[in-house]
Each structure stands twice: as C-alpha cells, then as structure tokens.
C-alpha cells in the first residue's frame, strides 16, 4: 500500500517536471513568435506614411525633419558593404587558419591557436568598437591621409576580426571531420600532404566551410556596437571604403532611444529591424541547408 503511494507520488512528480520542461520549450517558441509578430506589426505601420518603394529604394534618410524622409537604401547599402568588406579578408584568413589548425599544426600549437580564437570570440563588441574608434581610426587617417578614419574600411577590419572566430571554428570542425580513410587513401596513392589537403580535405569539407562563412556573414551584418563606433554613421551611398557609412543596426541603436513612441520614425526603425531580421534569417537558412547537405554527403 505504502509503496504504491510512493510510486504514485513519484509518477506525479515526474509528470510535473516533464510538463514544466514542455512549458519552457513552448514558452521559448512563443516568445520568439511574439517578438516577430511585434516587430512586423510595428514595422508595417510605416507603410501608411510612406510607400514601400520609397522606403526600400529612397536614398535619403532624414527621419526627424519635416517632412521626414525614410529612404533606407543607404543603410542597407552600408550594412552590405561592410559585411562584404569584412568577409573579403576574414574568410580567406579564417579558412587558412582552419586548415593550418586542423591539418598541419602540432598539438601544442593547435591548443594555443584554438585558445586565441576562443579569446577573440569572447571579446565584447564594445571593446572592438573602442579599438576601432580610438586606435584604428587615427592610424588609418595618417596612413591613407583621409579626412576621417571612421569609415567603411575601419568597420570592415573590425567586423572581420569579429567574424574570424566563427569562420575558423566552423571550418576547422568541418576539416577535422573529414574521414580518415579518405585521406589515407589519398596518401596511399602517393599524393603529398598539400595535394591531399587540396584535392581531398577541402572539397569534402567545403559544405561546412561555406556554412562557416555564411555564419560569419550573419555575425557581421547583425553587429551593432562595434560598427556604430567605427563606421562614422553618415547615411550615404558610396563605393569608396574610405568614406563613412551607416548600417541598419547602427541606425536603430542611434535613434531608437529618442524616437517618440508611436511616431513614424519609431515605426520606420522597427521596419529596419524587420529588414535586418529577414536578411539574417536568410543567412541562417542557407547555412542550415548547406550543413544538412554536407552531412548527408559525408554520412
């Protein structure tokens, strides 16, 4: 009788805990959905004030003038430009680093390098921004004799540094996961180490490497504090990396605090957030698909 009661108590407890865990899981999903709903609802209101064409393709961002102008193209342009600039140098470097760590480095050097990459990943973005603003900007200014060091080039360097750990660790994981049999077969055929890397390891790991690069892109485009401090924040469309630019994220951070709630400006900032969400969502989906395909290929 007593043991029966104990058993039932235990069952009840287990059921309760199980239920709670379910609740947490669905709670997390619910919160994400609620945030999305809010983001798109608040952002959508802007299209009552301005047409979506003017919003997406307008070239002038002057939200606090009368009449205000909400052209988000310069901001989108700025975001894409610094992301591209960051990847241009951090992707080759990150992949190279990954090959070195996975294939060539001695265990001791590998441990040191991995620790460094982890430290790089752990530095808060405001520290990167500070570095860009106080050290890199005056340096660029004197080296390239440009009017200001707060420019797309500066932001690209900083963002590249921030994307580097992501790219490196994803790529390194992918290269390390290349099955040994493949490499051994290559060696057995008389291929050199470099030939094995070039014709076996990299092609097999390419899906994972691409995935890492895209995750790095997501990291770069979503970064706020560092670009806010390093990019200069002038909302212009330019092809020169030595001009100041403004990103989507920096605009939201700069203006949200003091945009009156419910004003067109406030809704325009939410709409920028929605654009940003769609872009980084796309990056994540692409990275996921690549990883899936790559895993299937290996499996």
């Amino acid at each position, binding site marked *: 009788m007593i043991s029966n009661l104990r058993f039932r108590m235990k069952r009840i407890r287990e059921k309760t805990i199980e239920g709670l865990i379910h609740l947490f899981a669905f709670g997390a999903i619910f919160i994400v959905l609620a945030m999305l709903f809010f983001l798109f609802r608040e952002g959508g209101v802007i299209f009552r004030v301005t047409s979506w064409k003017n919003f997406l393709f307008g070239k002038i961002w002057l939200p606090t003038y009368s009449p205000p102008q909400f052209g988000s193209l310069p901001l989108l342009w700025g975001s894409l430009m610094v992301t591209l600039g960051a990847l241009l140098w951090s992707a080759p470097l990150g992949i190279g680093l990954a090959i070195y760590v996975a294939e060539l480095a001695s265990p001791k050097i590998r441990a040191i390098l991995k620790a460094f990459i982890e430290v790089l990943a752990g530095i808060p973005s405001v520290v990167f921004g500070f570095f860009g*603003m*106080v050290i890199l900007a005056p340096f660029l200014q004197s080296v390239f004799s440009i009017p*200001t060091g707060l420019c797309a080039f500066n932001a690209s360097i900083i963002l590249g540094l921030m994307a580097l750990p992501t790219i490196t660790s994803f790529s390194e994981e992918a290269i390390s996961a290349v099955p040994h049999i493949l490499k051994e077969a290559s060696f057995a055929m008389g291929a050199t180490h470099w030939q094995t890397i070039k014709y076996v390891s990299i092609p097999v790991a390419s899906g994972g490497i691409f995935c890492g690069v895209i995750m790095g892109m997501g990291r770069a485009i979503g970064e706020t504090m560092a670009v806010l401090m390093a990019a200069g924040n*002038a909302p*212009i469309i330019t092809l020169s990396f030595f001009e100041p630019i403004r990103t989507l994220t920096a605009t939201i951070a700069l203006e949200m*605090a*003091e945009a009156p709630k419910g004003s067109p400006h406030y809704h325009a900032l939410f709409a920028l957030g929605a654009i940003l969400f769609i872009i980084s969502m796309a990056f994540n989906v692409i990275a996921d698909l690549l990883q899936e395909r790559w895993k299937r290929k290996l499996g």
Partner: protein
Amino acid sequence: MKFLKALKVLALSLPLIPMLLFGSGKVLVLQGSTTVLPIAQRVAEGFMKRHPGVEISVRGGGSGVGIAGLLDGTCDIAMSSREMKPEELQKAKEKGFIPEEIKIALDGIAVVVNPKNPLNGLTISQLREIYTGKITNWKELGWRDEKIVVVSRDSASGTFECFNEIVLKKEPLTPRALYQASNKAVAVTVSNTKGAIGYIGMAYLEPKVKALAVEGVMPSEETVRKGIYPVSRPLFFYVRGEPKGLVKEFIDFVLSPDGQKLVKEVGYIPVK
C-alpha cells in the same frame, strides 16, 4: 447577502491597488524632454533620499509628450527644453489652469574643433554653411587645404534638436556628416581627426578638443547665464497652476543650492 458582502470588500480594497503599485502612496510623476531627463533623475534621487516614502517616477518621451501629459493630467511636472507653444497654452486654459513655468537650468552647446585647428571662432551663418554642406574645406575659412569632417549628434537627440533650431534653422544636415551617439563620442572623434568640427554639451568640454567662439563669444558658464552665448537655451519645468504640496517641495529642492549643485553635476548650468 453574500454577494453584497463580497462587493463591499471589493469596493473597499479598490484604493489598495494604486498603493500596491506605487508603494507608500505619495507619487510624483515627471515626464518630457530627454535633455532634461538626467537633471530630473539626479534631483529625484536626491529628493527621495531626503524624503523617504516619496516615490518619484521620471519618464522621457520628449518635450511635447511631457506637456501633453501635463494637459491630460497624467503627469505632475512636464520637463521641457522649449517654451510652451501658444496652442498648448490655449489648451491649458480650456482645461481651466494657467501653467506655471519654472526655469531650472541652462544648457549651452559648445562648437569644438581639433586643437591643431588655428581658427578661434565662427559665425552662426558660417556654422550653418558648414553643417549644410555649402562650405566643405577649411581653406574657405582661412586655414589650409583640409577637408572639413562634420560631426553631429544623432538626429534624435536633444542636443541635435537645439543645434538644429539655433544654428541650422531646420535646414537639412549634409548627408556626409558623421553621426555619433554621445557627447563623449563626438569629443573623441574631433580630438583624433584633424579636420573635424563637432558640437557637444558644455559639460563635456575637455582639453583634447578646442572650443570655438560663436559670434565672437566663448561658451562659458557666465556667457550662457548672461544670455550672450548664442547656442544655448533654458530648460523648464511646467506645472499646473501655482505649485502646491509635494510639487512645490520638489521644485523648491531643484532651485535650492543643493539641487542646483546636482544640476551642475550632470553637466548643465545652474540658474542660481
């Protein structure tokens, strides 16, 4: 009977709700300008320390929002970085009160350049031409051939609002301007950029940047207080009619030497 009893209990407990929400009951609500916000916050802290049991809630939203709140009765004191507009005064009259204006502090905005820049002063119209992009090189102002790097505060800030009104006269800023999120960031940018010009709240002046005279007047506590430095403005509290009770106590505290010391601490110029 039971139902009536329940209703009675409910009715009696209704006043408890605000008390539960606001603690001990004595609540003062301030709303309005984000420029005045740091003053209000610091002064409110000081006031609450001296008067335990008093709860002060300070909200932003902008001068217009604060004044609207005062008219609707949702706040006790409106913080404003501008004078009330005639239509707002009219509305107040319709609601049956004449708002009382209390000048609590002054705000001066200093125009700063890099210390390497030999210029000592600019006129308002020169400043406007620089900030709207009509003058783009220091050569045009009598220095060497050096591009002007225009640095501004973000267009939503109170500092920008003031500068915009007095200097730009609401003409749009050049799109080439760099935007920085804080006074400090503007100062850092100007201090390490040779050709830069920026503007910051006077409290943020530091030796690493050089303040310019505007219309021949240097920014200082004295010139702002005398009203001869052009890029400055008074900051106000507005209340409903003659201040009474807690509102009066709070305002007396703001204007007292202790309160004005706090005003100075957060970087504004005391009125007394």
